[in-house]
Every structure is written in structure tokens, then in C-alpha cells.
């Protein structure tokens, strides 16, 4: 067989990944994504014996497995791109080109991804990136960023407008690039690596850290106890509730609905204060560790959480009912920032940005791990692809997550009293870990060398797939609707930039 099928969080020897010649590698992976239940979760390269080894992982959501194949190419040799035949690969190939300089013959647009410190072409810098522009007396360009009006991360948005109407938006990111993947290799202590995982994207601490611990425990052949699995699932769902509530508040701010902004804003506080009660940090940093937890979840905490949600639900339902029936808010939400189903499928969006356009992509149901296996998750799908759909998804996912949390805390497992010793990572191995962060699927891949040390660590945040959707969503909307469109996606800049 010219590919190998893995389950989520499985470790295999790297040599078990079949190595194909590039033409067969291209044909194989393009054939996989023709099926609507298959999508590319990660495609990256890394230096290998003087050449570049490319590893492509395509998830099959129906069979709940990941098909991995590889090919070795010379960094200088021109290659035909996957993208020419299927646009979902465009971002991965742009990244491979940026990191290694592989000259793709027919990639439609080799736009820089993040201007990393170790990019192949050292001559280009983020300050002189040539944005797409139009020479016209009637059109004008608006440049926003990198530093934005509100307290959010930096990124540059270049609009081409006809009066108030946006014709084209080009987004350039890379301002948040901190070199995390390289730091994973350089900082060798486990605590340093897990701290890095927590800081990839500070609003997805539970999502990224759970992916890291699942990966590392798999690499070390460690089976976490039920108590650890419950804690991680609980943390991910709590994070989902907390962020979605904050997002609804921010969306109300962007349409100038002050009451919604204030009420949803204050509803976020008890949820993150619960994280502080559980682990001493409002954003759950320090909670999730490999092979142990410093903060076991107790029945007392469970009772507090039940009371918290009893109070939360009353206020939340009251405010949601008000917001989702308010004509002035709905007029701003409906039919704004639309991404049609076929556009979403062409870009290859994931997570909420896919589910709001009718595409069912949710790792919790397609590749479940920890307690998601028990929860039998059903993704919430909306079809209009507009800001209203994205707001609806958030409201319903909050309700769904609260249901899951109530279910999970009914049976808190006993703390594992004899923890197995963590052995060293297996040498010459490949592991893939997928979790569904609140934005969408997070993918961590690790490759170890012959001593068991990390040779390569590849992180993929869901925002990597979805930023192009923001650029398309604002077309033909008024520029005054840009903030609500952007906020309704709420993608991660630092997750994209690493």
C-alpha cells in the first residue's frame, strides 16, 4: 500500500510511512480529497538527509482514520503543485515554499505565510510586501494594521474599495511569529515544551495543550487514567463556553449593542473564575500536564460548577433571546459576511468556519479522543454562512457544551493513585494528535530521531485554514461591516504565525 492509516494519537515508526516518488505522492493525495469526507489536516516538510521529506496527512472522517504518505524531494527542483488541481492545499504549499524555497511550477499564488526568521528567501521582509493593487481613479485602498484600534493581535488588512463597498481584501500575517516550532526543538525540558504549547494561542490553551499531552503520552507509550481524560475534556468544553460567551459580547460591541456587550461580557467572568478556582489561572494555564495533574477535579468543584451553570443559563438564555430577536442586531448579522458552501469547500475551511456553511467538520465526532468517545458528539451545522450563522453556532455550542459538562461531572473518576512512570519518547517515530479547539481542528505532529529526541514538531492551528475565508467573506460588504465580519470568525493571529 502506498499510504498508512493511523488513528488519532497513534505513534508509528517513521519508516512505516511509505515513501513515494513525487508524481505518485501527488496523484494519491489529490485522489483522497476528491471524497467529501476526506480533508487534509497537515502537509509539511522537514530537512532530511540533505533533502526535504514531505509528509501529507489526510483525515477520513467517516472511517475515523488519517492516511499518511510521504515523498523526498530536492529543495531546488521545480515541482508541479497539488494546488493547481485542488485549492485546499494552497496554504500548505505556500508554507513549504516559504520554509524551504521549493519552486512550485504552477502554484497560482505563492504569497508569504508568516515571514519566519528561518525563511528560505532572506531578502523579503514583512514591511515591503507588495499588496495586490488596482490602478483606478475611482477605487481607493484602505490599510488597517498591523496595530488595530482595539486590544487584539496584529495583522495587516489591505482593502480595495469602491466608496463604502469592499471589492477585495488581502490579509498579511506574520507579525506574531515567535519561532515556536524551533523552540520546541531547542527547549528540551518537558515543562518548557508544555509551557510553549500553552502559549501557542492563549485563548486556546486547553485545545493546544491537550493535543500536546495526547501526542507526548502516545510517544512515551503512556495511557492516561480516566481522571486525566475527564479533566482534559472538561477543560476543553469549559474553554469553549468561556470564549464563545466572550465572542458574543464582542460581536454585540461591533454592532453597537451595548446591553449585549455588557451582559455577555460579565457572563464570561464566572466561567473563567472557575478555571481560577480549579487551577489558579483564569485561562487554564498550568492545568494540563503530561502524565499527571497538579489540580485534580473533585466532586466539590463539580458542585460549584453545577451551581455556576444554573445561574449562568438563566442570564444567558434571557440575553440570547433578546439579542436574537432584536431587529437592529439581526439587520447587521443577517446576510453579512457570507461564505457559501462551495466557497468553504474550495478553501478547505475547518471547525466553526466550515460548520457555519453546512460542512460537517468536527474532530470531536470524526476522530474522538478522551471522553469525547463517550459523549458521542453531534456537530452543530448551520447553512447560511453569514454572521448570523456564526452567532447561532456559538449560542448553540454554548448550550451543547454546558449539557456535556453537566453529563461529565455526574461521574467524576477517582484520582489515579499509582501513576505509571513516564518512559522516554520512542525513537524514529511519528505521532499525530488532533483535537477540536473552539475554533476548529488543531493538529500537532512530532517526529523523533534515533535517540528519541524531537527532530521536528509541526503545529497546525485551525486559523491556518480559515484566514482566507475572512478575505472572501467581506467582499461586497460595506467597510463598516468589516469589524463584525472579522469578529464573527475570531481567528487566531498567533496560532497562524506560531
Amino acid at each position, binding site marked *: 500500500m502506498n499510504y498508512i492509516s493511523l488513528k488519532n494519537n497513534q505513534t508509528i515508526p517513521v519508516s512505516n510511512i511509505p515513501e513515494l516518488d513525487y508524481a505518485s505522492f501527488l496523484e494519491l493525495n489529490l485522489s483522497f480529497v476528491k471524497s467529501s469526507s476526506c480533508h487534509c489536516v497537515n502537509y509539511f516538510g522537514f530537512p532530511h538527509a540533505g533533502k526535504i521529506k514531505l509528509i501529507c496527512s489526510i483525515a477520513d472522517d467517516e472511517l475515523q482514520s488519517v492516511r499518511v504518505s510521504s515523498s523526498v524531494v530536492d529543495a531546488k527542483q521545480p515541482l508541479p503543485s497539488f494546488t493547481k488541481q485542488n485549492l485546499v492545499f494552497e496554504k500548505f504549499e505556500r508554507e513549504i515554499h516559504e520554509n524551504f524555497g521549493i519552486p512550485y511550477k504552477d502554484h497560482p499564488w505563492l504569497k508569504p505565510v508568516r515571514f519566519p526568521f528561518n525563511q528560505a528567501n532572506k531578502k523579503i521582509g514583512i514591511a515591503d510586501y507588495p499588496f495586490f493593487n488596482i490602478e483606478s481613479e475611482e477605487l481607493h485602498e484602505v490599510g488597517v494594521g498591523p496595530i488595530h484600534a482595539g*486590544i487584539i493581535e496584529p495583522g495587516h488588512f489591505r482593502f480595495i474599495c469602491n466608496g463604502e463597498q469592499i471589492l477585495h481584501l488581502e490579509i498579511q500575517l506574520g507579525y506574531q511569529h515567535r519561532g515556536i516550532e524551533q523552540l520546541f526543538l531547542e527547549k528540551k525540558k518537558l515543562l518548557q515544551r508544555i*509551557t510553549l504549547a500553552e502559549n501557542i494561542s492563549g485563548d486556546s490553551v486547553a485545545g493546544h495543550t491537550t493535543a500536546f499531552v495526547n501526542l507526548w503520552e502516545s510517544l512515551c507509550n503512556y495511557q492516561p487514567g480516566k481522571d486525566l481524560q475527564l479533566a482534559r475534556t472538561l477543560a476543553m468544553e469549559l474553554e469553549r463556553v468561556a470564549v464563545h460567551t466572550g465572542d458574543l459580547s464582542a460581536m454585540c460591541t461591533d454592532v453597537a449593542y451595548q446591553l449585549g456587550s455588557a451582559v455577555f461580557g460579565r457572563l464570561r467572568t464566572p466561567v473563567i473564575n472557575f478555571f*481560577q478556582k480549579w487551577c489558579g489561572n483564569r*485561562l487554564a*494555564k498550568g492545568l494540563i500536564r503530561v502524565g499527571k495533574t497538579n489540580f485534580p477535579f473533585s466532586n466539590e468543584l463539580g458542585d460549584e460548577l453545577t451551581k455556576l451553570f444554573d445561574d449562568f443559563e438563566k442570564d444567558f438564555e434571557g440575553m440570547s433571546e433578546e439579542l436574537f430577536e432584536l431587529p437592529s442586531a439581526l439587520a447587521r448579522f443577517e446576510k453579512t459576511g457570507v461564505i457559501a458552501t462551495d466557497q468553504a469547500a474550495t478553501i478547505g475551511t475547518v471547525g466553526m468556519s466550515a460548520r457555519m456553511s453546512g460542512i460537517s467538520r468536527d474532530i470531536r465526532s470524526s476522530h474522538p479522543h478522551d471522553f469525547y468517545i463517550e459523549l458521542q458528539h453531534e456537530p452543530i451545522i448551520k447553512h447560511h454562512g453569514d454572521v448570523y450563522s456564526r452567532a447561532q453556532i456559538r449560542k448553540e455550542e454554548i448550550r451543547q457544551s454546558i449539557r456535556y459538562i453537566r453529563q461529565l461531572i455526574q461521574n467524576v473518576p477517582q484520582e489515579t493513585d499509582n501513576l505509571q512512570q513516564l518512559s522516554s519518547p520512542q525513537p524514529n517515530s511519528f505521532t499525530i494528535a488532533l483535537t477540536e479547539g473552539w475554533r476548529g481542528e488543531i493538529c500537532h505532529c512530532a517526529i523523533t530521531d534515533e535517540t528519541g529526541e524531537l527532530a521536528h514538531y509541526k503545529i497546525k492551528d485551525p486559523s491556518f485554514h480559515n484566514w482566507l475565508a475572512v478575505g472572501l467573506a467581506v467582499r461586497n460588504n460595506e467597510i463598516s461591516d468589516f469589524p463584525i465580519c472579522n469578529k464573527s470568525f475570531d481567528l*487566531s493571529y*498567533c496560532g497562524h504565525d506560531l
Partner: protein
Amino acid sequence: MLDNLKILLHQGKQYIPDVTTAKVPGIFRGRPVISMEKVNETALIDVCPTNAISINPVCIDLGKCTFCGECAFAFPNKIKFTTDYKIATNDPGKLIIKEGHDESIGLDPELIRAEIYRCFSGSLKLRQVSAGGDNSCELELNACGNVNFDMGRFGIEFVASPRHADGIVITGPITTNMAEPLQICYDTIPEPKIIILAGTDAISGGIFEGSKALNRGFLTRYKIDLYVPGNPIHPLTFINGILDLIKKRK
């Protein structure tokens, strides 16, 4: 209309009445206290992910500390994190907590420029620049303005342009790609202006320290007016730090 009023009435008073005496719920890790107990110092230094612990005497540098608490778990009789959230200071020396000391950290009034009290005691408009921040400090800075913490009641606000601002709040370890935009933003702020570093990443680089993707040259060129430790900062740390900065008289 009536439904809106019902919701408003039901929410009641959401603001924390006195931010200087509020208690944080739970097991918040604030200022650590280090006992004089003798421990294996090599092992102690090795626990910390960011080399925040040093010896002779044993110290924790809050500018590097990620507040993960692993040192306290490994050496419970040596290190305890208290719930004291007032850990902001304008003297980087005060960020170094020495063994045997349990005093609260505060600001050194001698280091506060006269114009800060004269111009900003009633109204401070800040510009936020995320220079590689992971969004956790940014979320907490946003929370500082929500109805619970409400720093707006002290005249402290974040503004949309450096031209409207009295100072800059930097989060994140300062990436190379943000170095120039940060400088341009700072240059655009009219004098007198202040610089606040919010979060471990901003103060020392945090876990990103040593990365080749950073350029922290900006910090070598100016005096910093306030350091706010935390990972992420707690809104009460930030608000109390600023209040002490702008309301303290020399």
C-alpha cells in the same frame, strides 16, 4: 424596551466596589514567598521552565516567572504562592523576590516622573500594542474594561490611535516583525508618555526568551514606567499597578 430594562435590573451592580481590597477567588498564584529552608538548589533551579529561580540567595524573578507553580509543588516547604495580586512595580529590582522576605511589592515613588501625576492622575488614555502576545494578556486587558473590573471609572481607557494616547501598553515578547510597527507607534504618541509592560513575555520574553524570531531592542532604548507580571496578567494586578503609578505623589 421593557425586556431590556428587565435584564438591566436583573444584572444589578456588577462592578467590584473596591479594586484595591478585592479578594481573588480560588487558588490564584500571586506573589510567592520563599522560606529559609535548605533544599537541593540544583534541583530547584532545574524545575523552572524559564530560569526564573536563582541561588545565593534563593530568588524568583517575577519578570521571568510563568506562575506555573511547579516549583511550589516540587518544594512545598520552600516556595508558596500567595493570593497577593498587587505585584506590579516600576522598579525591576522589586520583581526579584528573595528568600525570607514577605513584604508586598509596591512602586518606588522616587522613580515616578513628576509629570505622570500632574498630567495623568485623573485621566490616562493608553494604546495597546500586541507585539507577539498570545492573546491571553489581551483578553485580560479587555476584561479590565468590562463591567466587573471597570477601570473606566478611574479615567483609565484604551484608545484607538497613538495620537490620542498618553502611553503604550506592550504585551508579547516583541517579535522581529513587530519591532518596527511598535517603534512607529511609540514615536507617534505625544509627550509626555509612559511605557507599561504587561505580562511575563513582555518583561523578559517568557518562554520565548532566546528565540531568533524576537527583537527586543526597543526596550533597551527607553525607561519603563510600569512592569505588570503575570501569565496572563490578572486585571486587578494591572488596575492596581496603574492606580499606584498615577495617583502616588512623590
